[in-house]
């Protein structure tokens, strides 16, 4: 499969009054045609900034400091505004988190979908309306003829998110960024939207970049996973590898903090102690070190390099896998840092 989008060493900072907030600190990822990848991490780790930058939606005071965004060979970090406007909503589109606040409250939903279509296609109003109905049917929207005249507040949360999906897909994009598409929804509706997106994958050729902190969503949709922490990718690999054989202590923490019905003990949930670092002055070494149970002296002072494991492309940036540490920490690695086994 051909690589569609390749992001290299993307570095984004927000120049605020308090100083430079280094939101994204050298992120690499790539996505191939028809593939679904997930970028996982807790709030504020830079997931949203990363994809918004790729789509050219970075707003003041944010600036791309370094890196390349290669979309089918073209570097979007250097592209003109006009070029970005032509791509946005057309070849790349985005689904946002909260369908209520991300839809214009005073515009009929049909028009909001049609607007995206008309922006990139020479079409009459009737042609656009026909396309809107077609795309609303594709996302299994109930009675589209009537509901295209509704305002967002007249629809339920799940329906609104379907509108969002329809709006993003109306121009048949090559890449779809889904920024926490299920976070603001009820659990049952979440399942519906995931099912919808999975069923769409077989009907359309769009590659999907899924941003989430919900490991359950990742397991349901993604082929490959990138784990992000404090503006960096700390681990990435095939979804199966990352779930079955996680390597980075942060990934261990994420996976163990999923509530489980069959968990041993009396219900106390696992969690990662502490808070993410202040990106105004990010730590010199590994950003996760202050919260890591297995941190060594070196972790606080030097960035860990990437180590590659087993089959191709499963990588983690952690000192535990250096030759010197490997033997001493064999036990920790074996048990994936879980004291309870």
């Amino acid at each position: 499969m051909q690589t569609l989008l390749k992001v290299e060493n993307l570095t984004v900072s927000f120049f605020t009054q308090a100083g430079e907030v280094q939101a994204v600190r050298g992120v690499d990822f790539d996505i191939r045609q028809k593939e679904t990848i997930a970028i996982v991490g807790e709030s504020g780790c830079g997931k949203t900034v990363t994809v918004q930058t790729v789509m050219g939606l970075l707003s003041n005071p944010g600036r791309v400091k370094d890196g390349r965004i290669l979309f089918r060979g073209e570097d979007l970090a250097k592209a003109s505004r006009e070029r970005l406007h032509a791509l946005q909503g057309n070849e790349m589109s985005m689904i946002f988190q909260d369908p209520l606040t991300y839809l214009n409250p005073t515009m009929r939903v049909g028009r909001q979908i049609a607007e995206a279509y008309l922006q990139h296609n020479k079409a009459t109003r009737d042609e656009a309306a026909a396309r809107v109905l077609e795309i609303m049917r594709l996302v299994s929207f109930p009675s589209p003829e009537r509901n295209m005249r509704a305002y967002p507040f007249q629809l339920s949360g799940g329906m609104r998110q379907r509108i969002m999906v329809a709006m993003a897909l109306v121009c048949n994009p090559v890449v779809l960024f889904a920024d926490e598409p299920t976070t603001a929804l009820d659990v049952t509706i979440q399942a519906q939207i995931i099912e919808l997106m999975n069923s769409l994958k077989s009907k359309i050729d769009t590659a999907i970049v899924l941003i989430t902190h919900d490991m359950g969503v990742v397991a349901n949709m993604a082929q490959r996973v990138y784990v992000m922490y404090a503006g960096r990718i700390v681990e990435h690999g095939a979804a199966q590898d990352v779930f079955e054989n996680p390597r980075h202590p942060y990934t261990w923490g994420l996976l163990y903090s999923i509530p489980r019905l069959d968990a041993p003990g009396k219900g106390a949930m696992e969690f990662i102690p502490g808070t993410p670092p202040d990106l105004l002055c990010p730590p010199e070494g590994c950003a996760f070190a202050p919260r890591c149970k297995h941190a060594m002296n070196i972790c606080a002072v030097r960035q860990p390099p990437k180590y590659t494991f087993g089959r191709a492309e499963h990588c983690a940036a952690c000192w535990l896998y250096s030759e010197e540490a490997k033997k001493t920490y064999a036990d920790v690695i074996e048990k994936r840092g879980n004291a309870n086994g």
Partner: protein
Amino acid sequence: MLRYALKRIGIALLTIFALTTITFFLLHLLPGDPFLNIKVPVAIQEKQMAYYGLDKPILQQYFIYLKNLLTGNLGTSLKYVGRNVTDIIADFFPVSAALGLIALFFAELIGMTFGILSAQFKNRWPDYLLMFFAILGIALPSMVIGPLIRYFFGVELRLLPVSGWGTPEQIIMPAFVLGLATVAANTRMMRACMLAVTTQDYIKTAQAKGLTPTQIVMRHELKNSLVPMLAGIGPAVASVMMGSFVVEKIFVIPGLGKHFVNAVTTLDYPLIMSLTIFYGTILVTMNLLVDLLYGVVDPRIRLD
């Protein structure tokens, strides 16, 4: 919608009734009477009072006034002898209303445009410049700016007529002075409304569709900024239509403005009452119209 409108019209009638009653009694609480004049013998004054029915008990006068009002008879002026109050309003109101509406139309248009521009250039020099003029426009009263521009454009440059009413050129300066404060207030208000909308999430969605900044302003930001703006328009329309004492005085315009002041200083009871009720009616009507417009601009506002 219809039920809501009917309910509101009912409330409006009650409001006007309350306004009539309160104004009536407050007026008669004022010391003195319309015919008080040391040069005129007391007997003649009493005769005059009796002629206009002002010697009757106050409650009786009130009911007589209400009865006349319901039959559409607003009475005759006590000062413009023999002139019907209705005729006075019919003569002077169109002038004030025309001037006021022209002034307000341009003031709203220009104010909103300036506000949008100011918001687009937030914290850059066009914003600072517009905000400077907005402060100036709010701070300078019409009795200062009026004579100044009248002298400058009328006397020094001889570009515009200094006074009078009738030709389009004669409208420009008074309309400018009358609308200046509105332009200034609207610029600031529109700027604030636009800035509140710009940070909304759905603007990000619009950007993600590939819309240009201008398209985003016109299609998404403008309509969503209008609701707070509408609130100010109703009272503004009513107030400019009634004419401005100062502006009409400066530019010698035969409007209604001077009658508001003159009627009170001379205690011309029927004229004061009529002008107040007339103003009140227009104000209440404008507010009702604005409330109905809310539902058009923002479908989330349900009228019932």
